[in-house]
């Protein structure tokens, strides 16, 4: 069979390179490499089957919390949710797969199924203008003024203030998680798509932030194909898939913050233009765009320190303040709440802002002493303003914060992991011994090695923060000396944060 020269010319030589502005460094299209995975993700039942077991477990945990023992370390709700689930989520799912938990989360499932009036299949109306899927409910649009994650930030801070109660009392966990189901259900009937997940869910807020670091990302393979696509099926829906429940347009997506990995776009795209990409951890997606996202990074980092002091620290006063329903020390609790909120929303951002200002002065001062190279002018690198520096330099706090949370979570699992084995046999604390493991004694796993592991994890976080911070400084100033002077105050902050956590965990 002869090769037609004209076809060769068109397909190989003249075909433009795919437009992928989000690609920096090493990326791999996992969907192209592993075709069965692409097939699995396109399978309409995939998400339903991923949610279903979690939904059953979730309701069982709530029942166990309501009817089982109130002693947290003997109740499956506390042991499985706040020890096992949390550890897997923060140490594996988030760094490796970003928002993979959102794929299988049972909390918004009932609301979404009711909104769609379908469990698996798609309701399609070809003549409809705009959205091609038919949704049940009032179908209102989320208010524009709330199109940010401030509500998530405040809700997460509120939950964090009561965290000592949340993670030790099964009944509190049941009411909070049950309340989230009810809220998600109500919102699904009023607003279109997953507004609970996108704007309110406290877990989704930090998953979105830390998904920026993850090694997996869903992206359009070629933005130009999306621009030319007449149907915009990923956004508006098609007969094969629902329009993006997270309200994301794949043709412009270059950050993972708000992509919930539901994989509907893989099904609805008529051009096979959506791929699941694998990329290096933490260093490719380094743009914080808005103040609410920067504050999320501050809040998460400060809360990692607060939890480390309150829950893992040896100081009884903080535990007494946080454990207010048992101690009755409401004055202490108010002081604790004021400390937490003040540190997250005022003290840390103020210190950070001051260092950003110092960074700006330092680079300007250095700039007076050196000639800006021609390459810098050619690249359009001017003098970055305070807001740009404030937002750009907040990204390194994301890998730093995530690794601090992993370091915090290690002793939770290694010290309290043996409760998982005993609770498996007696999930409600009623004296059962289903698997013969109910009386396995509490025994910490490699406790002497935990501080060493924590130190290694914290140093890893600092390395990624410095690496990305250095790249950001270079992008901002395009001159090594000015970038170095601009980076120094911020690097000092990251070092200080790391030493603080080292002291908390190993010092």
């Amino acid at each position, binding site marked *: 069979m002869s090769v037609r020269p004209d076809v060769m010319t068109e397909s190989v030589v003249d075909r433009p*390179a*795919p437009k*992928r502005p989000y*690609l*920096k*460094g*090493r*990326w*791999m299209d996992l969907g192209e490499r592993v075709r069965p995975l692409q097939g699995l993700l396109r399978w309409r039942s995939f998400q339903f089957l991923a949610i279903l077991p979690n939904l059953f477990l979730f309701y069982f945990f709530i029942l166990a919390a309501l009817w089982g023992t*109130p*002693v*947290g*370390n*003997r109740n499956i709700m506390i042991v499985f949710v706040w020890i096992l689930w949390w550890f897997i989520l923060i140490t594996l799912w988030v760094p490796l797969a970003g928002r993979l938990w959102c794929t299988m989360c049972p909390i918004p499932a009932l609301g979404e199924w009711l909104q769609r009036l379908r469990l698996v299949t798609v309701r399609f109306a070809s003549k409809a203008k705009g959205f091609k899927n038919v949704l049940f409910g009032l179908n209102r649009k989320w208010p524009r003024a709330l199109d940010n994650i401030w509500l998530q930030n405040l809700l997460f801070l509120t939950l964090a203030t009561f965290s*000592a109660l949340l993670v*030790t*009392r099964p009944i509190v966990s049941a009411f909070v998680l049950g309340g989230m189901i009810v809220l998600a259900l109500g919102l699904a009937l009023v607003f279109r798509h997953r507004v609970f997940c996108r704007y309110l869910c406290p877990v989704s807020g930090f998953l979105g932030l830390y998904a920026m670091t993850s090694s997996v990302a869903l992206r359009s393979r070629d933005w130009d194909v999306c621009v030319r696509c007449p149907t915009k099926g990923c956004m508006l829906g098609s007969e094969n898939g629902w329009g993006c429940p997270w309200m994301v347009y794949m043709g412009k997506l270059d950050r993972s913050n708000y992509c919930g990995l539901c994989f509907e776009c893989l099904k609805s795209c008529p051009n096979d233009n959506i791929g699941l990409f694998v990329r290096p951890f933490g260093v490719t997606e380094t743009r914080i765009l808005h103040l609410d996202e920067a504050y999320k990074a501050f809040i998460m980092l400060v809360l990692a320190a607060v939890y480390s002091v*309150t829950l*893992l*620290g*040896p*100081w*009884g006063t903080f*535990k*007494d303040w946080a*454990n207010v329903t*048992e101690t009755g020390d409401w004055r202490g609790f108010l002081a604790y709440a004021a400390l937490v909120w003040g540190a997250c929303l005022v003290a840390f951002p103020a210190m950070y802002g001051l260092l950003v200002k110092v960074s700006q002065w330092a680079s300007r001062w250095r700039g007076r002493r050196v000639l800006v190279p021609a390459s810098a002018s050619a690249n359009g690198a001017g003098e970055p303003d305070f807001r740009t520096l404030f937002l750009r330099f907040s990204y390194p706090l994301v890998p730093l914060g995530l690794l601090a949370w992993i370091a915090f979570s290690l002793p939770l699992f290694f*010290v*309290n992991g043996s409760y998982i084995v005993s609770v498996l046999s007696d999930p409600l604390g009623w004296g059962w011994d289903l698997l013969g493991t109910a009386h396995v*004694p*509490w*025994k*910490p796993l490699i*406790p*002497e090695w935990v*501080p*060493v592991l*924590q*130190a290694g994890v*914290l*140093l890893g976080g*600092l390395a990624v923060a*410095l*690496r990305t*911070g*250095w790249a950001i400084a*270079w992008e901002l100033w395009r001159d*090594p000396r000015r*970038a*170095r002077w601009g*980076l*120094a105050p911020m*690097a000092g902050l990251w*070092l200080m944060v*790391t*030493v603080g956590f*080292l*002291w908390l965990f*190993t*010092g």
Partner: protein
Amino acid sequence: MVRNVLVTALLVLAGVGGGVWWARSTAPPQEIVVDVEARRYAYEPPVLRARQGDVLRLRLRSTDVVHGFFLEGYDLDARIVPERPDFEVWRPSEVQWAEAEKRGELPTKTESSVEVSSLQGIRRVREVVLRLDRPGRFRYRCSHTCGFMHPFMQGELIVTPNYPFHVGVGAAIGLTLAFLAWRPVDPSRRRGTSS
């Protein structure tokens, strides 16, 4: 790129070396007597500091409910009953106090003190003696469910030289200085960039 990697490796190694030097101690060993008071959900004092080679005499008390005292690194566990001057202590920690109680094997006689290195099985004592031959940070935790916050009831025994902390801080400083000394890499010489 090679220069950056070399600079990073050298400065981190220098930081680690500085951390080891910082952590070392030449003071002579001493004997420390501490009364540890357990209450919901903390120990008083919350942090015990000592040097490698010191001898630590621990007297454990509880002021409210039954608490445990599991000491990491020394595989020691204890049961502290409120308002009693003595306590039950055992090693290895796998020994089941509840099983021993069922079998009626709990000690009835109180000894004035026991040295941890010679401890086997359950003993009732007024004082436990530890020769601190292992440096590092060891937590002591409550091992008997004592209330809602029980899994978070803990204290710290810090035996210097505490290498994970000092070496960690040294490495962090070295790492930070290394990145400040980094030079930009010519993008045309970077390998493995896909498009």
